[in-house]
Every structure is written in C-alpha cells, then in structure tokens.
C-alpha cells in the first residue's frame, strides 16, 4: 500500500483569494516555462502602467520604439530595485528576468510624464480565476464517477463472496479480478479512509497475520491453497467493508488538484506493484488492476481537464495522446479467460512486454504530474 495523497474530507489545499486585474496579464508560467511581460517605454511612462502577473520566473521584455524621454525600466519592492534595464534608447529592446513572489511592486519609467506604475503579482498556485462553477462541475463529475464505480464494486463483490462462501473455488477464481476492478479504479479515494484500504486490499505482510483479510487473503486461499475453506468470515467482512466505503462516498469533499494528484497516484500504483506482478501474486491478474488504475486516472484527468487554461492545451493534448498510447499498449494483452477479466495473466508476459507497458505509464505520468498545479483554485 502506498501512502495516500488525497485526504478525503479534509481540504488540504489552502485557497487564496484571487486578485487579477484587467490589465495585460502575464501568461502563466507552466513547468519549465518562463512568463514574458512586454513593456513599452513611452513619453507618458511605462505602458502598461498597471501590470498583473503570476508568481514565478518572469522575463520583462522592454521595448522603446520612439520615446526620447524614457530609456530605463525598473521593478522595485518599496525602494529596493529588484531588476532594471537602462539605456533602452529608441529602436532598442532589452530583457531581464526575475523570479517574482506574490505581492505588490512598483514599476518605474524615469523621465516619463507619469513615472510610476504598479505590478501586482498573484500566487501562481492559487491565482487562476477559473470559473467557480466550472470548478464545482469538475469535482461533481469526478464524484459521480466515483459513486458509480463504488456501486459497481458492491455489485461485483457480492457474487464473488457468495462463490467463496459456497466453496466454489473455480467460480470464485473467475470472479476475483472482476470484483477488484472497480476498487482499483478509485483506489486513492478508498485509501483516503485510513482503515478501509488495509482491510480491503492489504497484501501478505502488510498487516499482522492474524488480522489479515480482504481480497488478497482470499486470493491466497483460492490459488495457493486451492480451497475456500475458512474464508466465509473473510468474505462477509469484505462485503461489509465495500459497503462501508460506498456509504462514505457522499460525504467526500475534493479539490480539483486532489483529483489530478489522484490520477498520478493511480499510475504510481501501476508502476509500483502491478507492473512487477506483486499486486496479485497468486492469481497473476495484475493486468486487470492495471487497466482499472488507468481507467480511473483517465476519468480523473477528464474531470479536471476543462479547468486547464487554453495556454495549457499542448499539455492536455500530450496527456490525451499518451493515454491512448497506454490503451494501445494494454490492448495487445487482451485475453479470453474469465480469470484474467479480459486480460492475459501476468505470467504470460515477457520482460520485454512489461518494460513496454511500464515505459508507456512513465511517459503518461510525467506530464500528468504537472496538471495539479495548473488546476489549483
């Protein structure tokens, strides 16, 4: 089990008030990029005189087309000069860069009829003025998905538990991966309820042996011991636990950034345990879990995608393309056997196969990890 990132009902993200002016604003510095602010020196002073920007690395590109009166531009914090360019005479342009922190600064174009201007820097993490309605809609969309998966989980666990209790090992085996699927698709949500995930999804050794229950306890009995004997109580408890989970969904409060982080968390689950075959070490049904994690990540990303600014469209396109690449890679390992829930068993894969799958997950998770900061609100 990994440490969880999402905290279910506790809102972990501080929401700061946004104060974006209507003047020319800098483009948001996304990861690795530097925002550029253009300032023109005029006889009247700095143009624009009032600048709004987001915190982070920022380049000031200072242009003098034809002002004889003004040839320098300064950014000041009180009286302290943070950055400046001088001798920008008509026809010249010069640049300088600063890493801006949020706050109020002064701009100065000495010699202009109005020398001083303002620079308001909002925190990039919270300064985006995404429409609150859009934000609420994004969260609602995702929670609808979570609730739907949770219902499917309850519905899939019931016949599995019945087969276990009835001692039908073969039938239980054929229902195992399908029962897990809808848990794996919303795993970070389940993990946010501290005690539920260990009860439902602990692997051998994760918890004291005498308290070990859940999916993997039954998996071990079915595959390693070839019996369902003694598993009735474990099956009953599993049914109770997934119902508890289902009953808790309605109370969940989420931030868009948590949803985006949850998507990355799901892919980390794939990298850490599914691709190594450690998750379902007796049944080897890891690819079904893999597919569920990816489906859950896709649902989370799609929910928050509408919050990305148009300037982030390249990132969104990249992520969409890489989800497709993962789907294509996974589609090569479809299988007919009921045990695999539509996929081949992990043991049917060569190291070359797992390397290819792992690579496609890494390629997707890297750009996806940049989304959370961009949808913060």
């Amino acid at each position, binding site marked *: 089990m990994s440490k969880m990132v999402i905290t279910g009902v506790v809102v972990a993200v501080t929401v700061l008030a946004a104060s974006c002016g209507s003047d020319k604003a800098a483009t948001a510095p996304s990861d690795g990029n530097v925002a550029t602010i253009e300032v023109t020196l005029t006889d009247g002073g700095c143009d624009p005189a009032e600048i709004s920007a987001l915190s982070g690395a920022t380049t000031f590109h200072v242009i003098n087309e034809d002002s004889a009166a003004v040839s320098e531009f300064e950014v000041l914090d009180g009286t302290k000069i943070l950055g400046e360019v001088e001798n920008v005479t008509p026809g010249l342009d010069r640049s300088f860069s600063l890493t801006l922190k949020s706050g109020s600064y002064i701009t100065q174009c000495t010699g202009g009829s109005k020398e001083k201007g303002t620079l308001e820097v909002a925190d990039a993490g919270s300064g985006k003025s995404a429409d609150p309605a859009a934000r609420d809609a994004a969260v609602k969309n995702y929670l609808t998905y979570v609730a739907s998966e949770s219902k499917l989980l309850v519905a899939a666990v019931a016949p599995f538990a019945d087969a276990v209790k009835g001692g039908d090992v073969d039938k239980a085996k054929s229902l195992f991966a399908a029962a897990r699927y809808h848990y794996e698709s919303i795993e970070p949500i389940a993990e946010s309820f501290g005690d539920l995930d260990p009860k439902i999804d602990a692997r051998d050794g994760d918890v004291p042996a005498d308290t070990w229950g859940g999916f993997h306890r039954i998996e071990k009995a079915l595959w390693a011991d070839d019996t369902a004997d003694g598993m009735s109580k474990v099956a009953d408890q599993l049914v109770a636990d997934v119902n508890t989970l289902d009953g808790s969904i309605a109370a969940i409060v989420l931030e868009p*950034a948590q949803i985006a982080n949850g998507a990355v968390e799901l892919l980390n689950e794939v990298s850490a345990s599914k691709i190594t075959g450690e998750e379902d070490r007796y049944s080897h049904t890891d690819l079904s879990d893999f597919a569920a994690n990816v489906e859950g990540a896709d649902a989370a990303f799609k929910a928050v995608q509408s919050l990305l600014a148009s300037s982030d469209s390249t990132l969104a396109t990249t992520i969409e393309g890489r989800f497709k690449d993962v789907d294509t890679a996974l589609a090569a390992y479809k299988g007919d056997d009921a045990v695999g829930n539509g996929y081949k068993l992990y043991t049917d894969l060569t190291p070359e196969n797992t390397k290819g799958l792992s690579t496609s997950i*890494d390629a997707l998770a890297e750009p996806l990890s940049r989304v959370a900061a961009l949808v913060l609100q």
Partner: protein
Amino acid sequence: MTGAHPAGDTPPSDQKSPTLSRRRLLGVAGATAVGGLAIGASTAAVIATRDDDHPSSGVVVPFRGAHQAGIATPAQDRLLFASYDLSATAERDDVISMLKEWTLAAERMSQGDPVGEPAASEYSPPTDTGEAEGLHPARLTITVGFGPGLFTLDGKDRFGIADRRPAALIDLPSFPRDELDPARCGGDLCVQACGDDPQVLFHAIRNLTRIARGTAVIRWSQEGFGRTSSTTSSQSTPRNLMGFKDGTDNLLSDSAEFASNVWVTGADDPGWMTDGSYLVARRIRILIENWDRSALNDQERTIGRTRDTGAPLTGTAERDVVDLDAKDASGSPVIPVDAHVRLANQDKLGIHILRRGYNFTDGLDPRVGQLDAGLFFLAYQRDPRKQFVPLQTNLAADALNEYIRHVGSAIFAIPPGARAGDWIGQTLFT
C-alpha cells in the same frame, strides 16, 4: 577565502537570484583554485587546469563550441553512459524538441545550475530533481550521439532522415570471439556524461531521462570509475583493472595528430557531421579470477609491457619505444607475436583512435559468483571503417583474448557541438 565553502550553507540574500546557483558560488571557488582563471570566458572547448590529474571540481567545462565537450576534454574521473531507444510512437517533432530541451538542460547542468527554472508552484513536481544542489560542477560534460536506429529501424525511415545516415555509421561487423548480449548493445541515441562526481553524473542522466519520457527510454547504461587512458600530455597513465598501465599509446588531445584522426571535416560526407566524430563503445569484461591466477611473466608477455613501470618488454621506461623487431638470445621476438601491444600497435598499423574508456564493475555475476568487471572501452575517431574496424580485426589473435570477453557493443555518430543559440542535432534535422 570564506566564500569557497559548498553552496547551501548560506542562501544568497539577493532577491534577483533566489535560485541557489552552484555556478555562481562555486565558479568563484573554482577560479580561486586554479589561480584566478576566468571561468566561462574562454571560447576554447576545454579549460586547462595546471595539472589535469588534480583538477579543481569547481571548474566548468564549456558546453557550447564547434565540437561537443567530453571528447577533447581531459578525461575526467567518472563516467555514466546511457543508451536510449526512441519509442515507437515518437515522431520527428518529438525528437527535435527533446534534443532542444536536452541542449538547454545540458548547458545548465554543466555550469552547475539546476536543469531549469524552478517550478512556478509548490503544487508542481520540482523542475530539477535536486540531488546535485550544493555540489560542484565537477567538470561535467554531456556528449550526445546518434545510433543507426535514429535513421532507420527495421528498414523503416521513422523520422525522414534515412538518407542522411552517414556511410561511416556502419552496423559494426561481428568480430571473432564476440559474445555480445543484445541487452547491452546498440541504441538510437546515447549520452556520455563524464565528470569528477558520480552524483553529478547521476543527476545529469536522470534529468535528461526525465525530459525524454514519452520520446525515449534508456536501453542500457554503464557506470565507469577510473579513466583508463591519458588523453592529454599532462595526465599520467592510469592503471586498468588488470593492474597494468593502460592507454600509454593514445591520441592526445593536445597533439598535432588529434584533429585529423578524431574530427569529421568538411571533406567528409555528410556535411551535417562536420566537426563531429564517431564513437564506438564496447563493454569488455575481464575474467578477473583467471587473470589473478596467471603468473606475472605470463601477464607481462600477454600485454607486452612490464607491470611495474609500464615499460615495453624492449625498454625500461613507460614511454620507451615498443621495438617489435627485437629478438632475444634464442632468436624469438622479445615482444611475443600475440602480445597485445604488438597487435594493437597504432603506429605500426598507421591507425590512431582516441581511447577514452573507464573501468567498470557491476558487482557480482550471480550465475557464477565471479566479479562482473572490466573495461568500458570508448573510442572516438573520424571514420570507424578505417579506424576501429581494422584495429579490432587485427586483435583476433591477441593473447589478451584469453582473459577478456566483449559482451556489449554500440556505435554512434557524434554530431558537432552546439554554438550559441543552436541545439545538438540541428545540422541533421534542418
């Protein structure tokens, strides 16, 4: 000078540069250590130190220039080499943007700076992975190469550059006694990171690999320690894992013969490779246990030199001439007919390469409980068809073959360096 302690102790208070810069703090330290030499002001590919054997780790090797750094650069102490496969879904534009990003990142890291500007938000993963913060630039050089698979893979012209593949970028032929492991061979791209601090090298490869995600993945990698050749006249000859001085007979970057044997010129085809070079990499495992139980005189007759001084068997000092015609009292050659120095003798063959290899160990070979160690051979040259291939072919009868196995192999075209504003590979793709 009090300012010469490692960065990280005192964050700079100047608000203009809230980013801790290894370069700014340590460039000063480096300059002090080498006697006031101006850092970064030189346009030469290499900043010489007073004694290349004891470099100041604060020294920055300029990344930009006509040639890529890491070739003529005096061999640093450490290597981390990575070979990459381009992903099946990568397109031409993906490769180009990766090379552009690599160029900027490599330039920054070689100066001791983080790979990019800090992320705008604490809710983003950090732009730089951070483990080199506070470390010296360590003479880091990053050298990028292009393997045959970049041009054509399984007969497919993936990026529209199949017709630009240099004829000299051959698929290496099989050599007698090759025992190549496909998992340690080939690659569409390579990055050679050299420097004096293994953590700086790890940081460099890690961050370039991160940038490459979705476009390229590491196929194999090799760590190296202890350079196995001297590459300038001021460096002393180091010893390889056989205990012998290695690389006495090497092209030296400050010699007259260097340029014409290493750099591709405008007279060579194709034009985009002008000022580039070709790299052959071979992972040569030494059968350490067998070597260790060989008698000293057997070892010395295998190499053709004495172990103690490195002198040829026909001389008394390391640099004495290797006299291949000398006979002993019984009329037999003093240097045996199958000795390594005879068969690998570059003067006799009229072939010269720059050897820039490193010792390596990957611990124990669990199958046999023996050390997995040897020489990671790196050779730079103007045309492998005329240099590495005939040299290696001539080693078929080498007595040394009894103690070594070539288990990995790759060849790369090393494009010219990136001048200001350019990117590595620009001459190929534009």
